[in-house]
């Protein structure tokens, strides 16, 4: 109860705050100017979920490469896995009064509306990657929400499921590691997996466990599944390569690396190495190819083009505003076709600038969203 005697001070404190507010009061402009922005006023902003996941690291790499090519300054936002942090950091950059061309890999789909609203209020342009609410469409939000972009999750699941099922001879038992429980990306990929397995009546999906995109949890969950099903497991599917890294380790520890096949999404460099080395007699049976650096650069470049006025979002067809980009299915057989890209990021950036965001191999635009789940 040391609270008394302090009303005077408190009043003074509020006075100070009020003064402070007065200085900042006139700031939140609603002028969502759709005027082209001069190139030298633009700042590229790439917002990633964290900085330690290989996919995110690749996104950062791509953003940096594009920034260098375009000669436009870049800011990286690390969300630290938290929606709260993500939104506040993006807003902090907007608060500096710069005109941003943003690419954001949202932590959760519900983050998209507040981010878009903030960008709109600051007169910037944003492209959202991977997650957004289903009913939150760019064409309803005006030009500042330039586009939503992703690779098809269903396709990814189908791709890898097919490769995995084939590798075990169309017969056997598999288990699946999903991402965070409420993630649409994970859900679409699992839906794709299940859909593809319909063509393989002899392949049984024993169990699906969430491993939160995390290698450590991938390891633990795989250990549990191995204990539960023992030698019954012939294949392990994961919604992302982060988890497959843990799963491979668990299977190695169990001494079954030659008997279990893996399939997952992303072809991260470490997994690419495993595939290349034909680890465990070709244990990595299937992957998808798409790259964080490509996604980040496509997203940033889309926003950048809108910001400079080179494209006018409202005039774009719908598939260019809610877009699905090509995803390639990788097996040990066609693996060599995809190794060339990782070493040539700069060259790819040149292609991107030449061909535009929708027409650059190996990830051209294939169709428009929203993604349909298979029945």
């Amino acid at each position: 109860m040391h609270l008394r005697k302090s009303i005077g001070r408190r009043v003074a404190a509020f006075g100070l705050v009020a003064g402070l507010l007065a200085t900042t009061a006139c700031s939140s402009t609603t002028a969502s100017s759709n005027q082209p922005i001069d190139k030298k006023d633009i700042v590229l902003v790439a917002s990633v979920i964290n900085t330690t996941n290989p996919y995110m690291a690749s996104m950062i790499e791509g953003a940096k490469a594009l920034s260098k090519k375009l000669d436009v300054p870049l800011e990286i936002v690390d969300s630290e896995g938290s929606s709260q942090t993500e939104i506040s950091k993006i807003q902090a950059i907007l608060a500096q009064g710069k005109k941003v061309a943003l690419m954001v890999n949202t932590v959760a789909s519900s983050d998209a509306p507040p981010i878009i609203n903030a960008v709109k209020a600051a007169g910037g342009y944003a492209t959202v990657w991977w997650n957004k609410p289903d009913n939150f469409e760019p064409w309803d939000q005006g030009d500042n929400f330039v586009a939503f972009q992703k690779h098809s999750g269903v396709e990814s699941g189908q791709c890898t499921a097919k490769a995995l099922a084939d590798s075990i001879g169309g017969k056997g038992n598999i288990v699946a590691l999903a991402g965070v429980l409420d993630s649409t990306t994970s859900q679409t990929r699992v839906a794709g997996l299940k859909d593809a397995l319909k063509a393989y009546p002899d392949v049984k999906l024993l169990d699906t466990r969430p491993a939160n995109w995390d290698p450590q949890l991938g390891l633990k969950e795989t250990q549990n599944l191995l204990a539960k099903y023992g030698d019954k497991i012939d294949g392990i599917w994961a919604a992302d390569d982060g988890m497959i890294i843990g799963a491979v380790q668990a299977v190695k520890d169990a001494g079954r690396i030659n008997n279990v096949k893996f399939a997952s999404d992303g072809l991260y460099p470490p997994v690419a190495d495993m595939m290349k080395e034909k680890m465990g007699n070709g244990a990595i049976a299937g992957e998808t190819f798409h790259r964080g650096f490509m996604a980040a650069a496509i997203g940033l470049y889309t926003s950048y083009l809108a910001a400079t006025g080179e494209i006018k979002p409202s005039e774009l067809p719908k598939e260019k505003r809610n877009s699905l980009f090509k995803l390639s299915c990788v097996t040990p057989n066609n693996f060599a076709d995809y190794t060339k890209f990782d070493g040539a990021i700069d060259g790819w950036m040149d292609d991107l600038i030449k061909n535009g965001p929708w027409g650059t191999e190996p990830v051209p635009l294939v169709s428009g969203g929203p993604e349909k789940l298979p029945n």
Partner: protein
Amino acid sequence: MTDKDTGTGLLEQAPAPSQPPLRAGRRFEFKNLGEVLALVGLIAVFTALNPATFLTPENLRTILDHASLPLIIGVGATLVILTGSIDLSVEGVMGAAGMTFVLMTANSRGSADLGPWAIVAALAVGVGLGMLSGLVHTRLKVPSFIVTLGVWFVGLGIATVLFGDQSIPFLPDGGIKAWPSTLTFGVPNAFLLAAAFVLAGMFVARFTRLGRFAYAIGDSEEISKGNGIPVLRYKLYVFVVAGFCSAAAGVLAALELGAGSATVGVGTLFLTIAAVVIGGTSLGGGKGGILRTAVGVLMLTALNNGLILSGVSPNIQSAVSGTVLIAAVLVATWPHRSRLRIVK
């Protein structure tokens, strides 16, 4: 934050005032039987539900393997909680120490190869972070809850900075990476290491000043001070020990994963604290022990494993663990209920 009776010792009797002095020799009292019985009951239930899979050597090895990290952390966490403080920095320290270890031993990035010194360096990081927690807590009188919360972020930050923006550092196959999962006497090395930590912790708690003073401080800091115990110094030591344990767990986790990851400790904090509480160590300090925590860890690990084996939906798994936690504490504290009991 809890300085009153929050004793949760299963079947632990309330001090009976009229009792004649008891014969001592507390090491084999029946007090621990409550938790052990619960563990046995849990095993029985899951064995009944999964007759073919639960009680297999392979699954038991999996449980022991999964128990090893929380067991190691539990040693430090129990000591800290015995003094009446709490250490939330576990996951951060694990991340920082794990990354330090991976980057300083032979790895795919080739950053450095200091051989065994990498382990020393990683443990030093843990000791340093433990010391940071302890010093801020004891010297600046900031509650341990909030200091270690801050150090959690500091540790994660260190791990993230070390990770940088390069590729994942992998440990080469074979060699030290295979050690944790190699079986000795049919048991994974990781668990043997954890068992060694638990035994060492029990020895410290019983036979050293550090352990005895931790109990004393948890009972009453004022009285301990009056008895000449350098309270602040020993609290600092306890945090250093906790940092050491977390770092050791971080190294072990990195070895098991075979790669560097800033979030290598994810999920271990609440698991460990729940295990400490279920084991019957009082969050108020002064009551409980490391063996109790070990039993608590085995209970929770067996529970998680058993739920997966029984095919319980992952959506409600956290609810089952939460209910078990509440039920365990409720059952343990029910005999202590009284109109005057203060719980915080």
